[in-house]
């Protein structure tokens, strides 16, 4: 099977206007996401993963600045400081929101919202309702939900409804931005399995953004680890999860409490830097236990093992 690129970025940087110029929160990201795979971006809050997700979904506000290239399904959406998502947003890429209770229109029933989207993209009035029912069936929601307002649904049901809505325009790429935070382990697993099944059934490309590392092993084919606006490690999920190379990834995995594990957790000293004061060179240097003099220069993301890239001088 030949892998085709669905998303391809070259030196993509994204920044926001603030009081003293431009604050670059995503720096020189080079990623390739293959078609019909699940690609996870993990990282702590403030590392730029949501901004990257917004760039993929075409939701960057106009006060955002861009640099580099981003291609989605063969369409160039970002070229230098120009962005053009016309015909891409909705038709090709949609997004699953973080908090479905604020992302569903509170003034319309689930059915109305689905029908509006289907009608806009496919314009078949009679079939729209039929299609909406199919979508609900796909995400395993009872059909009477079609007449419910969002506030009448439980948390898990809202998230399913939001997934149905994101599938309604029949996109090729779906960006899921932390869709499982605040759900319990069971519902988190359910939503992840649902997404995985939908991705397989509909041949979608799924970009899954999360800080929940445990979840990624369930659904991901590829994993990218972000730290302070850069991707520090990327590769096939089994390799990254079981044999992490970057010191940050290694420490991060050790800091997660595991079920039944009672030993004292190891911690990463210090706290993540803010975009206003990224350290020079390797951005993990001030917190890194194994850093050396090379680290004052910025490392590049290089393939050190097959399908496993890392940006660290120790492997250069």
């Amino acid at each position: 099977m030949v892998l085709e690129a669905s998303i391809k970025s070259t030196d993509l940087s994204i920044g926001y206007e603030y009081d003293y110029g431009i604050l670059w929160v995503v720096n020189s990201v080079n990623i390739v996401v293959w078609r019909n795979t699940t690609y996870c971006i993990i990282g702590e809050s403030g590392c730029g993963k949501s901004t990257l997700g917004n760039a993929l979904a075409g939701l960057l506000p106009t006060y955002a600045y861009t640099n580099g290239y981003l291609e989605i399904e063969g369409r160039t959406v970002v070229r230098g400081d120009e962005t053009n998502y016309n015909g891409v947003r909705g038709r090709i890429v949609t997004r699953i929101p973080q908090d479905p209770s604020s992302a569903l229109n509170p003034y319309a029933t689930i059915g109305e919202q689905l029908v509006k989207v289907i009608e806009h993209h496919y314009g078949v009035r009679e079939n729209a309702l039929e299609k909406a029912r199919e979508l609900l069936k796909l995400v395993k929601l009872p059909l009477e939900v079609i007449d419910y307002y969002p506030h009448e649904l439980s948390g898990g049901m809202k998230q399913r409804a939001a997934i149905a809505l994101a599938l309604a325009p029949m996109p090729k790429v779906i960006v899921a931005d932390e869709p499982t935070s605040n759900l319990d382990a069971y519902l988190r697993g359910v939503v992840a399995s649902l997404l995985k099944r939908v991705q397989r059934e509909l041949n979608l490309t799924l970009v899954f953004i999360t800080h929940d590392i445990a979840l990624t092993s369930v659904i991901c084919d590829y994993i990218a680890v972000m730290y302070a606006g850069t991707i520090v490690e990327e590769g096939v999920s089994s390799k990254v999860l079981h044999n992490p190379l970057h010191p940050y990834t290694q420490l991060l995995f050790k800091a997660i409490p595991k079920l039944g594990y009672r030993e004292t957790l190891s911690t990463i000293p210090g706290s993540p830097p803010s975009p206003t004061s990224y350290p020079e060179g390797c951005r993990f240097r001030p917190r890194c236990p194994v850093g050396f003099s090379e680290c004052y220069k910025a490392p590049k993301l290089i393939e050190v093992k097959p399908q496993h890239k890392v940006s660290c001088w120790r492997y250069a």
Partner: protein
Amino acid sequence: MGITLNYVVRRIVLSIAIILGISIITYVFIYLAPGDPAYVWAGRPRGPLASEAIARARVELGLDQPIYVQFFLHVLRFFSGNWGLSIRFKQSVFSLVMRNFASTLELLLVSFAISIPIGLFLGIHSSLYRGSKIDAAINSLSIVLSNTPRFWIGLAMLLAFTSLNIPTYGRISDNFRGELVERVGLYLVDSLLQGRLDIFLDVLIRIIPPALALSLYPIGAIARVTRISLSEALQEEFVREAVSLGLPRNTVVYGYALRGLIPSLMQAIGLFFSYSLIDAMAVEYVFGREGLGNLLVKAIPASDFPLVTAALIIVAIVYVVTNTIADIVQALINPRVTM
């Protein structure tokens, strides 16, 4: 299972309670007012039979009763539309006030028919282009508009239109006054009902300048409220979601963001409407139109307290009614209403 009073019922009960509260204040007002109402009622009698006539009037008015009975009678009369006789005009206060109120209402309705679309248009576009020069211009304009005294602008307009020989003084030309048959009380409607286009045009020309002067405040205020609340609504997550689904701009702005704002905008407009009543009275006075304003200006020097209170109670009732309607509509539209 607990029984809850329906929201609509509760809102109506509350507004009746507020009107009752206002009637208490008016009672206090009339009670405190200088002069003896019985003396006035008896027609300011003089001579040997005066004290007898006053005593009779006192019984007729129930002034010989204890104070709580008097108050009860007052409330009863208040709600049955018996608001006494005007001292200055020697007519029923109720019919006098109602006739003049129709004129004020007509002016207000015309001015809001002008200001609602303009205000909404300005507010929506200001918020869509916020941070830009258009936004700054619209915002400054709405601040200037809502902070100019309406009666003063009215005065300037009166002067301007009159020097251009456009008749704007008064509500209707004297020639037509006898010819118009009053049915609804709103001359614009009455003239059309009668099929007299010439009267309609005359009334329209005379109503436009004061209505324009009056609409300055609501235009500015509606534009500002719309701008602020729409800017907030456009930040909401479900609007972003609609954008991410590829829905077109108009659907997102009007169908998603603005739809949720309708109740609160209605409430705000209701508030501006009742605030504009006092302005309407002042503008009316400037343009020499009959109405509550002119009534008030004539009634106060004559110490015509029943008339003054009645005219002002109308203002309060309009406030309560518009707010109640806006609240109820809000509850009807918004599925999220909780109690």
